[in-house]
């Protein structure tokens, strides 16, 4: 017997499934994998992803596949994060720091200077940030972050 869920509940169910996949596999699930995981048609997944994208936490590629499920990036970036034997990418330094914050785990972020690529490895251990001194620069004022999230 199937239980009918409201779109909000189903979206939350999909959201949790996506995060579980990222955490376990170190990469984004494809739309086909999401549909299989939830035993649902792809069109239902696509519609839910469109709704989740309205929160800005999820961003889709032109193909409809995930580009970002914040703080995880679905595509390789200059912000790799590893924790134990698992690794992910953040879309920016904020998201890279967000991965250990969300997982509440120690992690290493292999970042580098945005200007000269000088290595700037950051460590999060027992809830504390260790590593070199540095400055985070956000080029776009907060009210315009989502005008062009890729640039931001």
């Amino acid at each position, binding site marked *: 017997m199937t239980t009918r869920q409201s779109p909000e509940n189903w979206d939350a169910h999909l959201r949790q499934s996506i995060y579980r996949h990222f955490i376990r596999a170190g990469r984004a699930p494809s739309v086909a994998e999401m549909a299989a995981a939830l035993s649902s048609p792809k069109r239902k997944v696509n519609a839910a992803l469109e709704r989740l994208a309205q929160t800005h936490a999820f961003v889709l590629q032109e193909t409809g596949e995930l580009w970002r499920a914040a703080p995880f990036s679905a595509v390789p970036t200059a912000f790799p994060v590893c924790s134990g034997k698992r690794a992910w990418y953040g879309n920016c330094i904020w998201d890279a720091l967000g991965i250990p914050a*969300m997982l509440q785990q120690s992690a290493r972020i292999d970042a580098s200077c945005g*200007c000269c690529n000088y290595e700037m490895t950051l460590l999060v251990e027992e809830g504390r940030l260790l590593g070199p001194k540095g400055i985070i620069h956000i080029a776009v004022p*907060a009210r315009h972050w989502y005008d062009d999230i890729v640039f931001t």
Partner: protein
Amino acid sequence: MLLFRSEQHVDRWCAQWNRPRGGTLTLNQGWRLAKEWYEDRLSPHWRPKTVAEAEAAFARIGLVGDFWKLTG
């Protein structure tokens, strides 16, 4: 949102990209912001922050002023 070695490297990047200087925060502020934003993200009851909640989170970290306002 990029990480830089120093203020000078921020200025150099802005010149290279012909961009005005934006907002800056220390790494410690960045870590606090990451925790504010993402600590509850795996909760099944998570919902996006309202504008007021987001601006309050910025203010708790010391990120105040027009640059950090989400409306207006």
